[in-house]
Each structure stands twice: as C-alpha cells, then as structure tokens.
C-alpha cells in the first residue's frame, strides 16, 4: 500500500507542478464565470417580464442547471482522458518508468498509484465544476435540483470509467493511440445513445439494441443519462420535456456494469503492465 500511496502522491505532485491542473482550472473558472454571467442576464430578463408560473420557473431553472452540469461533465470527461493519457505510455517511452520499476514496489502499485492520483485530481475537478454550477444556481436563483446526491456520484462514475480506460490503454499503447481509443469509445457511446433514443422514439428495436450494445462497450454516456434523469423532477422526466430527459432511460444495472467495467479495465491494465518490457 505504501507503494500505491507514494506513486499517488507523486502523481498529484506532477499534476500541480506541470501546470496541467492549472490549465484545467483556468478553463473551468472561465466556464463558471461564463455560466454565472449568462445565468444572471437570463434571470434578469425573466424577472423583468415576470410572466412565468412557479412550475415553469422551476422547470426552466432545472434545465439551466442540467445544461451547466452537462458542460461540467464534458470538461471532466476530457480531463479524465487527457490527464492520464501519457502517464504510463509517455514514461515507458522516455524510460522514466525504469527507475521506479526497479524499486522494491510491485508493478501493480505503479498502475494503481497513478490511477488513484489521477482519480483524486479528476474527482476534485468535477466537485469544483459541478459544485460551482450548483452554487451559482443556488446563489442566483435559490434553486437546487433534486437528486444531486445520486446524480453527482453517477457523473463521477462516468469520469472514472474514462479515466480507467485511459490508464489501461497507456500500459500497452502509445500516447496518441491511447487518446484516440479513449475518445473513440466516448464518441461511440455518444452516437450509440442517440441511435438508441431515436430508435426508441421510432419504435425501432434494432436501433435500440445497437444503442444498448454501444452502452455496454462504453457505458459513460448511459451513466450521464442516468445522472441527468436523477437530477430532474419526475414530471420533467416523464414528459421528456427537456433536452436532458432521455426517452429511453438506461437501466440502473448500468451502475453495476460501470463499476465492473472499471474493475476489469484496471485488472487488464495491471496485467498488461506487469508483462510489459520496460
């Protein structure tokens, strides 16, 4: 365990020292500032006209919160893929990993330590962005969406899936190939979800099944759909009245699939790194 913690600490140190995190924080802060300013003007416009019912206002605020969380989710997903994309492949190519691997630690400690370090950074980043969106909404409109205690962990699970895929790929693939694989899978899940939604709307079972298979290959988009479903009132969900209300709601089994996916990807990464010539 000492090895895992030492490598995790090194990873955190690296994120801070190499200004990767600083760049991500600047982008995140810019997003929150834009979101806050935009929301301020929209709310002022709405209050000037004053023609919204309470229900309409709550629906509107919920959609605005989900829009913010969607952007926060996207930034987190990108961070989850890009932050660790060269952590192993880059260090293997440059030879940096050699002096670590000859120390009396297990190779799996290196993989797990890097995973843990990046997970803490990614989790912190998500907390900051999603927390920022929720705080801006609470401060500006005194509104908090329902189900955030279920929705935010699902967003974290989604980021963890992609982070783990990026770490796993780094044990065998070059940095560029690894990045393409992770983003490719993310794209596959995104398109798969649209195929599933359209298939459900059109009553096309085959299209629906294609979407489900895509979600099984990469469950990240299904986890976002599930998170978004949790963070809106049932009326909005049932009517499909917002862009964030999926017509075909993923099964909650997808949570277990996501957790299993992470464990298997980590195990594959550990095994591949163990056998890799360094």
């Amino acid at each position, binding site marked *: 365990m000492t090895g895992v913690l030492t490598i995790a600490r090194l990873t955190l140190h690296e994120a801070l020292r190499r200004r990767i995190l600083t760049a991500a924080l600047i982008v995140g802060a810019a997003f929150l500032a834009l979101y806050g300013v935009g929301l301020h003007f929209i709310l002022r416009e709405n209050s000037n006209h004053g023609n919204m019912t309470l229900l309409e206002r709550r629906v509107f605020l919920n959609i605005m919160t989900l829009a913010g969380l969607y952007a926060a989710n996207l930034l987190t997903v990108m961070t989850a893929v890009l932050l660790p994309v060269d952590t192993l492949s880059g260090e293997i190519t440059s030879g940096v990993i050699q002096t670590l691997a000859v120390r009396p630690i*297990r190779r799996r400690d290196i993989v797990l330590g890097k995973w843990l370090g990046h997970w803490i950074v990614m989790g912190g980043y998500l907390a900051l962005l999603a927390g920022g969106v929720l705080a801006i909404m609470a401060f500006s409109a005194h509104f908090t969406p329902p189900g955030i205690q279920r929705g935010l962990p699902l967003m974290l699970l989604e980021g963890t899936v992609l982070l783990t895929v990026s770490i796993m790929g780094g044990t065998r693939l070059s940095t560029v190939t690894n990045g393409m694989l992770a983003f490719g899978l993310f794209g596959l899940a995104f398109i798969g979800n649209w195929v599933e939604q359209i298939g459900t709307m059109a009553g096309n079972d085959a299209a629906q099944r294609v979407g489900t298979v895509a979600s099984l290959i990469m469950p990240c988009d299904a986890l976002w759909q599930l998170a978004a479903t949790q963070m809106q009132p049932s009326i909005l969900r049932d009517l499909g009245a917002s862009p964030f209300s999926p017509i075909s709601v993923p099964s909650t089994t997808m949570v277990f699939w996501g957790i299993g996916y992470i464990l298997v990807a980590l195990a594959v990464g550990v095994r591949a790194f163990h056998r890799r*010539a360094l």
Partner: protein
Amino acid sequence: MTEHVIETRGLRKQFGAKTAVEDLSLTVRGGEVFGFLGPNGAGKTTSIKMLLGLVAPTSGSASVLGAPVGDRRTRARLGFLPEHFRFQEWLTGRELLHLHARLLGLTPRDGKARAEALLARVDLVDAARRPIRTYSKGMMQRVGLAQALLGDPALVFLDEPTSGMDPLGRLLVRDVIHELRDRGTTVFLNSHLLGEVEATCTRVAFVKEGRIVHEMRVGETTGDAEVEIRAGTIPREALDAVGALARVLDDGHSARIEGRTTLRLTVTDEERIPAIARALVERAVPIYEIRVARLSLEARFLEVMGEDQRPG
C-alpha cells in the same frame, strides 16, 4: 565477499523475430567491478534489463544476489543508473532523491540524511532546489548516480554512466566506483569508454551478437605486450632465434625488422623479454633500447570483436 551475486545460464531474449540476447551465461562475484563490453546492438542493455527484472527473458535462468531476477526484496539492495537517464524533470534534484528514499522504504529521517550526503558527494548541493529540467546532461547523470546509490546497494548497475560528462564528472564517477569497490559493493558497468573500464574494472566480459565471447581479468591485458628493440644490424640467425620466443601473429610472422635496426615483436609473457635480449647479445647484436607496450583493453577488444566492431 566472494559468493556469486549474479549468475545467468543460457539467458535469451527475443523481441518478435529479433534476437536481442542469444545466450548469456555469466557469473559475477561479490565485490567485483565487472565491465560489460560490446558494440552497439550487442544486447548489453537488454541483458541489464533482464537482470533488473525490467524485461522478462524468453528462456534461460538467472539469479541476482541469490534470488530469482525481479525479486522484490532483492530490488531494495540494487542500484541502477539507466543508459538514457530520464527522470521526473519537474521534480527538483532533492525531491527526486526523497521520492526514491520513500520507494526504498527508508524512514523520512534516514532518507533525508542519505539524500543530503549523496547530493554533496555528487556535487549538486547548490543545484538541489532547481528542477531537474534545468540541469545539464552531466548534472542529470550525477543526480542519477545519487539515486542509484541511495539505498546503499549491494549491487549497482551503471549503464553508460559517463556518457555526456565532462572530464571532472568522469573523474567523479571513477572515484565513486573506486569507493564502492573499496566498500565491497559489486558494480556491473556497461560502458563504451574502454579507458574508463580499464581504469575501474577488475574483470570484463566482451559481448557480441548476444553472447559472451571473451572474459578476462583486467590485469590479464598485460599478458600480451608489444616489444620494440632498437639494435645494431640484426642477422637472419638472430631474427630466427628471437622469433621462436615471440608470438606468431595473424600474418604468420612472429618478429619483423623495420629499417634494418628496429625489431618489433609481440610476446604473450613479459618474462620472455630477458631471454630475447640474451638471444640477441649472444649473437653479438648490440642493443640500444628496449621498449615494451602492454596491449590495451581497446586493442584486446578489437582483437576479440574484429575491426568492424569498433565500440561507440
């Protein structure tokens, strides 16, 4: 310490269709400074990586410090300076040593004390707070040497430790190797700089195409010596007598005369030189000068490897 710290038998590494190491069988005894020499692509670095557990051998067996290669506990007693010394360049020199102290399981107090002592030893105290990315190649190699020695290892692998170093840096590495040898630490040195090897190693092995083709103690290089004798006119009879005492060279001759009065020959044993001088004097050949040049490690390397395999 005389037990074998490294023993390999038929170690082989295949990368796809390419054979990096064909058949590595060697023994390194405790306390030796062992030189591992060979041209580029001979399989030296892959051999070191197999001994460190970084690369799994395709076949064969090996033990390091009495344990199978890669054994985790044994790795705490190893030091390693890689050929392409690349470290976490965003760390400072001091932070790098603290990191490796933690990985070695040293207490924070011991780790700090050891790091400071080594920073002083490799003359990097003033640069210890600077990020490694600002270091010159020589400084990076010195901090690498410090991390290799951090755990007070019983066996140190140095893969080209002086490439890129200035003369003072090379002298420092040479001194460190001598200190290690005096302490009984075994050093496995892979270097292209044969002069360095000759000055530091007690035994060397020549590797060619993934096999050890020759092993020798460094002192043995004095076995062959080139002798140049400036004398009076040398008659045929004297030349034959001297030639019988000299080594027959590749061209079939054992001794040759240059400019009527200079005799050149190679002896396998310096103790033959008085007999050669006596043979000339007995035949009334006046001797003005005898110069003996020992065969250098480089000459032996070229002899073993062939001229087409010059190191470098």
